[in-house]
């Protein structure tokens, strides 16, 4: 009897969990993922898109009115000078953390289940950071001087204060946005190439082709690509920790009770991951339904995400408790008052919403029933995001509304324009997300293919295993090589080889049925002493660079040098401004106090390192290269879908048109083709 999806999760001692259900083949994954980009827009999409655009319009109105009238249209007052604006900022930045967590940290921990959701989580990160960046820009009311936040040389001879956490924010959030875009784009390149190769219209081919940079899935490109991805993950991991740590420092370096507490950095990071995962879950539940991705985004993915929310929710609960205990333990009456005031003061309602949503509600996830029930997950993911918004509201407003002097106590109530800005930011977020799911592949196709069992170069279709449709049994091909060509969708038969045109040609291209065939063929081609050759595959085949005898990528060195350069630039800039160009005593510290330079030095180092990784990868992989002889081959279009190739270039000293062709044939190539240059 076939198991239900929930039963499949009940694997008492999980070995390798099945991540993708219904064991699809490579081609069907391409079909499913590319489908939403290529098919007609579903009605469901418009149902989300139109309200989102309407909300985006609301944001436009609210922001325009704000610029015209000033921040007085919000409910701000003395002493509550920060309220919904900064709450929304921290809320959105926090949401933006899950994308990089899924992409980078889970990647480093080899959590393969991330492959189904990382693309959309990364996209979500970028859109969340966009939403977040609105608020620091507009909260001062005078957007036309927003450029003062950036360290630009100017006639006023004025420099931003590098010792202000608000400036660290500018660096941290904008660099985080940049690195997220780079990470997202690097991940997209192979999939854009897939869409390019499947394109039916010229415009499509052109547009996707430009952004695919001429990607041809070569093993040498994959090698640098994988190295770049790993390095970006390694850079993004401390970056993601630093961003919300720095956001927390907006509050924590101050002297305000309730804001100044040392646990803030890790506590904010945990909360950010918590809310980010909740948002990913909300979006995935909807997308999975609308685009019918049930077999790619499975209950197992939800199960894991729920567990991460349980962990991070508990961490947030731990931080709430430690803060409360320490507020008492410190013996500082202001500190204790700030916390008691949160729990029983005028904003107690907000505080208890926060505790209920963030600490109590995720405890439901101790039970597998809850972790695998879509309705419970969906409701809780929204509840958690409400709770996390309230957490930021509670932190910001409760500490401000009780100043040290009771005569300057106040109460903040939002106006309609506060609400409009918050709702409008959701409009921006959902509009961008709708556009993303419509025009870009929302699942990392190449990565999902790597988690299929047949992607393993040592995989053999055993008798107990069903051979996936569209895949050809490697043994059959080896047994009947003459028959192999007929099985490929386009027949470029071997007999062509002896009757070659005399003209100059680029080289020879052999197609292989499976990663395993490709892997073994590469070993033999390597042993035959070829040097000018390459292998091509829709996804990085594990260990292929070893089978080809390639040297390790030199990219790590590029990134190291760039990172150190970035650190030097960041450090010297701050030193020069504070100790030399504009010496000023700030908060009783010496002109140059090194601890205060750490955040920006770190951020600039990461920025340079990430740029080094991406441009180094492009340079080493010789991209962009939009024209290449290989693209003349019709069969080669499937290199970004489900076909595996070896290309041997004609200027290899051992190259011989017919002997090399025969070699590839003897290695199990199911079609061999000679390419003109």
């Amino acid at each position: 009897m076939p198991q239900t999806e929930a039963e499949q999760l009940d694997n008492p001692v999980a070995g390798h969990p099945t991540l993708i259900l219904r064991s699809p083949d490579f081609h069907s994954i391409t079909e499913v993922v590319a489908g939403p980009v290529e098919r007609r827009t579903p009605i469901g999409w418009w149902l989300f898109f139109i309200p989102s655009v309407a909300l985006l319009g609301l944001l436009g109105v609210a922001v325009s009115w704000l610029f015209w009238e000033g921040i007085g249209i919000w409910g701000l007052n003395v002493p509550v000078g920060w309220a919904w604006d900064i709450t929304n900022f921290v809320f959105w930045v926090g949401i933006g953390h899950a994308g990089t967590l899924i992409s980078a940290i889970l990647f480093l921990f080899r959590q393969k289940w991330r492959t189904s959701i990382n693309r959309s989580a990364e996209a979500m990160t970028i859109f969340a950071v966009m939403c977040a960046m609105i608020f620091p820009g507009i909260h001062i009311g005078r957007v036309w001087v927003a450029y003062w936040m950036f360290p630009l040389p100017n006639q006023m001879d004025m420099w931003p204060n590098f010792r202000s956490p608000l400036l660290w924010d500018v660096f941290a959030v904008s660099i985080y946005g940049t690195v997220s875009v780079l990470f997202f784009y690097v991940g997209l390149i192979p999939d854009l190439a897939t869409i390019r190769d499947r394109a039916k219209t010229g415009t499509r081919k052109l547009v996707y082709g430009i952004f695919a940079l001429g990607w041809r899935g070569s093993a040498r490109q994959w090698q640098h690509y994988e190295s770049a991805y790993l390095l970006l993950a390694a850079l993004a991991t401390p970056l993601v920790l630093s961003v919300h740590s720095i956001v927390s420092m907006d509050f924590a370096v101050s002297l305000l009770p309730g804001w100044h507490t040392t646990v803030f950095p890790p506590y904010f990071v945990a909360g950010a991951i918590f809310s980010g995962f909740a948002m990913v879950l909300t979006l995935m539940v909807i997308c999975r339904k609308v685009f019918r991705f049930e077999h790619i985004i499975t209950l197992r993915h939800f199960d894991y995400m729920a567990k991460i929310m349980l962990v991070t929710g508990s961490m947030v609960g731990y931080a709430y408790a430690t803060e409360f205990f320490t507020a008492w333990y410190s013996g500082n009456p202001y500190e204790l008052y700030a916390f008691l005031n949160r729990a029983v003061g005028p904003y107690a309602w907000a505080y208890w919403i926060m505790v209920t949503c963030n600490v109590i509600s995720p405890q439901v996830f101790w039970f597998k029933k809850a972790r695998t029930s879509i309705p419970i997950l969906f409701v809780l993911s929204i509840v958690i995001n409400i709770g996390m918004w309230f957490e930021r509201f509670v932190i910001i407003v409760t500490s401000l509304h009780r100043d040290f002097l009771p005569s300057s106590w106040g109460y903040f109530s939002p106006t309609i324009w506060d609400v409009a800005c918050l709702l409008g930011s959701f409009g921006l977020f959902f509009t961008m997300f709708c556009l993303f799911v419509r025009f870009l592949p929302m699942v990392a196709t190449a990565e999902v293919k790597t988690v299929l069992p047949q992607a393993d170069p040592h995989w053999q279709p055993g008798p107990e295993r069903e051979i996936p449709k569209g895949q050809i049994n490697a043994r059959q091909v080896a047994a009947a090589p003459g028959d192999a060509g007929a099985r490929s969708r386009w027949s470029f038969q071997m007999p062509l080889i002896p009757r070659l045109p005399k003209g100059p040609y680029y080289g020879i291209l052999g197609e292989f049925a499976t990663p395993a065939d490709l892997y073994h063929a590469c070993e033999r081609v390597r042993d035959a002493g070829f040097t000018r050759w390459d292998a091509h595959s829709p996804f990085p085949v594990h260990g292929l660079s070893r089978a080809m005898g390639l040297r390790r990528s030199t990219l790590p060195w590029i990134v190291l040098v760039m990172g150190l350069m970035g650190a030097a630039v960041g450090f010297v800039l701050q030193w020069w401004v504070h100790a030399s160009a504009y010496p000023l005593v700030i908060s009783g510290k010496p002109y140059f106090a090194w601890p205060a330079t750490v955040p920006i030095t770190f951020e600039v180092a990461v920025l340079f390192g990430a740029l080094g990784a991406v441009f180094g990868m492009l340079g080493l992989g010789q991209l962009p290269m939009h024209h290449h002889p290989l693209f003349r081959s019709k069969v080669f279009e499937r290199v970004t879908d489900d076909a595996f190739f070896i290309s041997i270039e004609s200027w290899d000293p051992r190259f011989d048109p017919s002997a090399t062709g025969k070699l590839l044939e003897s290695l199990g190539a199911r079609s061999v083709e000679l390419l003109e240059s």
Partner: protein
Amino acid sequence: MIHERDHVALRPEQATIPPGHPWNRIPVIAGVCALLGAVACAILGAANPKQFFFSWLVSCLFFLSLALGALFFVLIQYAAQGGWGIVLRRIGETTFATLPVMAALFLPVLLGLHDLYSWTVPGAAEHDALLRWKAPYLNVPFFLIRAAVYFGSWSFIAILYYRGSCGQDVTGDPGVSARLRRLAGPAIIVLAVTQTFASIDWIMSLTPHWYSTIFGVYFFAGSFVGFIALLSVVMVAMRRAGLLDTVISAEHLHDIGKLLFGFMAFWAYIAFSQFFLMWYANLPEETIWYKARMEGSWMTVSLFLMAGHFVAPFFYLMGRRVKRKGATLAVGGAWLLAMHFVDLYWQVMPTLHPEGLRPSALDVAALVAVGGCFVAAASWLMRRQALVPLRDPRLAESVAFENV
């Protein structure tokens, strides 16, 4: 490698200390060391009991933190269903199985409460409003009850997991793994809470006016790095001694190296967060702790800690080759293990010697005494059991594991 899972299994003789192997003598050697250390402590400590108690506290905290780090390591592996590290799990299990021994070794600390913790001195709160405020928490009976609760819960979890895993070697029952996995979540919560309060009680309350909300996380970060450092040294030593040399591969070394690097950076992040926020806000009630550590020779120790616990190992452990070779990884591990001791020493000792760094022979004697007991207990357990969880259902996956 899913298809190899059912075939690869370790033979028990591949994973035990064979008779006549030099490692069989470690318990005796360590026991003798412990005895010599204890005698030295008795002789030297009689003359200078205050120094003895502080030295003993640092040594206890050091080995205790390694055991707690090991407990976290194993519990997280269970909870996250990590497969790659199963061959290393028994080393962790053996380390935390010493927790009941550590409880006994902690008893001398309780004899020296008045020397260690100024708030326990009768009448200390009389002229100190803050101590009067904190008295509901900082009082000797409650302190003792808490210590009993910490050690009780740690020993309980440790024995539960050690027994369960060793029992599985005999029965081969895969249900054990499932049961321990289910318990891992609650156990982690218990451990997180007890460890936080233990660090407040035993380290933070040395400076009873001072407070920091991140302190529990800081202690956790240090203890985890400490255990991973210990693990990397033990792994390499085992391979050198011809134990598990067919089981522990360069892939495992590489992964432990990455964990060491990652958590070393995590420690730096937490340590810097605590320092930075206090330095920036410059509130006297918070800066007292750092002021004591940024004056005189303690400043040298602080800088050394920064360079030695972060900057130098950051560059040293960054490369891939360093992590994949036994000798180089062990050097990094041993260094960080030593730095973890320096970290704890730096946290505790300025209370005794505010005037500056005053190393004492008792520091060494206490380290040898406590460490001797710790090593003797662990190595004695190692002789009794296989060195890997032999019949864990996912052992083969761990043996065959490869880094991407």
